């Protein structure tokens, strides 16, 4: 690390002591929930919503909104970290774990492309989505997920930077090889671990 000091900088927005070790390097504590989206916000009615798991799988799976809500629903307390530097600590989402969604699917590849209504994609290794690490969520703080935050349903992969949690998610495509998604083609890191500060291609 360089020994550079910013003349006259003392730091103002100190994180509360008890939260400090939950803040990855280069992140700051944000109590709001900023919105970041590359294009216009899609509108998807829950009557038309469907969630699909396809690609290299033994059995494809497709769920309607009602079928999705018959699956075991969990409340997920978590911290989320956006690559634009804010972190939101101690927030709660409600949804279904990817482990449950993959039951009976039998993935035949190690890589996944999350895909969304509106065309967004982001790639994640299957191992980062299984074992209680990822969910498809339809609620935030007990309320239906607002459209601007990805409603009716978004991915939640809280241990990676938040662009890996696709908004308006439409499904998961299992692949036998890795492929960059939308931001991964546009300068952002292929994996995106906030604790390793994997922000950009060259990190």
């Amino acid at each position: 690390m360089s020994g550079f000091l910013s003349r006259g900088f003392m730091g103002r927005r100190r994180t509360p002591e008890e939260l400090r070790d939950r803040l990855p390097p280069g992140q700051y504590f944000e109590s709001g929930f900023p919105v970041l989206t590359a294009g216009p916000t899609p509108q998807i009615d829950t009557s038309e919503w469907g969630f699909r798991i396809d690609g290299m799988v033994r059995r494809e799976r497709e769920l309607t909104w009602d079928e999705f809500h018959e699956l075991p629903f969990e409340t997920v307390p978590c911290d989320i970290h956006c690559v634009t530097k804010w972190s939101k600590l101690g927030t709660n989402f409600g949804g279904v774990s990817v482990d449950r969604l993959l039951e009976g699917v039998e993935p035949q590849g190690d890589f996944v492309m999350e895909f969304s209504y509106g065309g967004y994609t982001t790639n994640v290794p299957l191992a980062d989505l299984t074992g209680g690490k990822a969910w498809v969520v339809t609620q935030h703080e007990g309320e239906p997920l607002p459209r601007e935050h990805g409603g009716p349903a978004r991915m939640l992969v809280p241990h990676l930077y938040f662009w890996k949690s696709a908004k308006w998610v439409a499904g998961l495509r299992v692949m036998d090889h890795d492929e960059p998604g939308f931001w991964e083609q546009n300068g952002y890191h292929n994996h995106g671990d906030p604790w390793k500060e994997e922000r950009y291609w060259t990190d």
Partner: protein
Amino acid sequence: MTSGAFPTPVTPVEQRAPGRWQIATVTRIKPETPRVKSFRLELPMWMPHLPGQHYDVRLTAPDGYRAQRSYSVASSPLDHGEIELTIDRLDDGEVSPYFHEVVMEGDQVEVRGPFASYFVWRGEAPVLLVGGGSGVVPLMAILRHRRRTMPELEMRLVYSVRSAEDVIYADELDDDALVTFTREPPPGWRGHTGRIDSSLIAEAGLDSGTAFICGSNGFVESASGLVLEAGFRPERVRTERFGPSG
């Protein structure tokens, strides 16, 4: 840079490694409005950016505490060896107030970039730029670059500001820019007032091509709706929402 013709549309960002932190020198500070200043930085490891790209800035306190933020580049990549960052002062922030209250010409700041290649202009035409408040900053990089490379290319800026004193780059707004004042227009103003609406978008005279929209979330939501109504295809509407970035 290439001379004469427009620089190659796909820039070297794909081949080079922009990621390293470097210590830039502030060579000029220009107050734009009471709460916005532009900082011209000289970079030892400069590389050309795509108009619309951003840099990360990192501040380090004596006890090792660090704060990072991202700021859009406002200048054209034709300004060899330097970049301009235009920074809106957020009262509850810690990086923007530092720039406004502490940084002087001659100071050094740590930066790295340029980053991201989605909200960028690669020479597409025609182009509609729609900015709210300090959302005009990355759009100004696009406008400035077009003026210096291919001024005949069809590009209009629609710019929404609160009052006359909030206009950033006031001396550079030419007849390719349409301004609307949402709170207090300057005395004698005969142009648009109020929020951006379909008549203002229509006056820009573009109904297809690529649109770049930047501003607060609410601004971007309503502006992108208007741009879609005007006939732009959703996949040609690129947005950037300024979250809290203090």
